[in-house]
């Protein structure tokens, strides 16, 4: 064996990285206003990666989760009368928090990038002046060593499947979006009288196109679910980064 081993990890931008990029590009601070402004861009992005070959499905599910939270934020900004459930509010707050933490750590990563490998301190080489004495212990016997190799084999990394929790979340997400569509539609009918004056046409137009967007996201979720029904998740997630041999 003269080959080297490595674990190769595919490089793609994560869901928060993409979102933060969009916010920073517009020079916005992380808050609900900023999030509702980038919601459309983000959703088009999620649409685009779903058709990309080689993009791991497990990660698409994460993107859809973020997209759905952005939809909530956007719905609320379009229809202030819309009341979010406790869980929905929670996911909105959670997304903001994650983004803030991510942003802070990503900035800190600059320091790490700058210093890494620049002035390395070295651990000393093996001390060769040690007198070598054959010193086995009580476990240095065939049964123990056999048990050890068995254990090592058992612990070899296996392909990881989408955690059940994520799949379940994606499914309930579909329901959530269905409900959101209904809520917005009825809210729209109720609020029709509120939309008076010159903006009337515009607003209806905005909300109708927003509803269309909800449908698109819903399709995306169904797409992910189907991948699972066809049993493709296993294959797809394999690409998240199974150890490679080079």
């Amino acid at each position, binding site marked *: 064996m003269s080959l080297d081993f490595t674990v190769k990890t595919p490089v793609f931008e994560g869901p928060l990285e993409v979102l933060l990029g969009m916010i920073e590009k517009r020079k916005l601070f992380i808050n609900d206003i900023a999030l509702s402004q980038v919601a459309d861009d983000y959703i088009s992005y999620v649409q685009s990666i779903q058709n990309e070959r080689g993009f791991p499905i497990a990660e698409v599910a994460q993107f859809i989760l973020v997209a759905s939270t952005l939809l909530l934020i956007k719905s609320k900004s379009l229809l202030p009368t819309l009341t979010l459930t406790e869980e929905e509010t929670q996911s909105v707050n959670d997304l903001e928090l994650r983004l803030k933490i991510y942003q802070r750590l990503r900035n800190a990563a600059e320091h790490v990038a700058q210093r890494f490998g*620049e002035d390395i301190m070295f651990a000393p080489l093996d001390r060769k002046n040690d007198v070598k004495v054959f010193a086995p212990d009580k476990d240095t016997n065939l049964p123990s060593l056999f048990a050890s190799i068995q254990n090592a084999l058992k612990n070899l990394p296996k392909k990881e499947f989408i955690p059940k929790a994520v799949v379940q979340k994606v499914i309930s997400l579909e329901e959530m979006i269905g409900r959101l569509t209904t809520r917005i539609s009825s809210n729209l009918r109720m609020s029709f009288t509120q939309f008076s004056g010159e903006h009337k046409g515009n607003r209806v137009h905005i909300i109708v196109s927003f509803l269309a967007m909800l449908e698109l996201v819903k399709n995306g979720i169904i797409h992910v679910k189907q991948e699972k029904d066809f049993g493709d998740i296993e294959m797809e997630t394999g690409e998240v980064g199974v150890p490679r041999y080079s």
Partner: protein
Amino acid sequence: MELDKKIEAILFWKGEPMSIKKLSQILSVSEEEIKAAIENLKIKLEGRGISLMEKESEIMLVTSGEASELIQTLTKEELSKDLGKASLETLSIILYQGPVKRSEIDYIRGVNSQFILRNLLVRGLIEKISDPKDARTFVYKPSFELLAHLNVKSIEELPEYEAVRKDIESFKSAGVEEEKKTEALSDSESLENEIQEDSELKANEDSI
């Protein structure tokens, strides 16, 4: 022989990290005495060709950062100086937020970190230990090797180390307060809020 000399001799001979606890056992003195002697040793090593590194309750002797180029010309080993984007991100989380669980790393990065963590473990840049709070799970923390690659003698020497930790703490506690506030307000939101949001609506119209 003074304690700090004994400690230096042991560390030199060992060439590996050693715990303060272990040193206190070997030398039959209290851990406090060991810690005081370490401070002495640090002073003696200031500006020398050797540095003392500290990580949690372990210490180790290494060549000083100043000698880096020199030793690099002597070493036959190929050095790992390049970090991919994902590695850099993951290492930064472990450095500034460690010890940290994989679920927390995944939460912050928003992607699955299983394989990047294994890669970093194999490279010796991070360590995986049982979570002291829950033996069934693991936490990840920086290794001496990682700190040595960053030329910091202890993690606190990392630029902005305290500031980053404090900022993230404050984000988290603000989040908790926000939650409480929302619960208190529930659906009886003030009229003022509604008006504000209404003006936001206008701002959003263009963006669609």
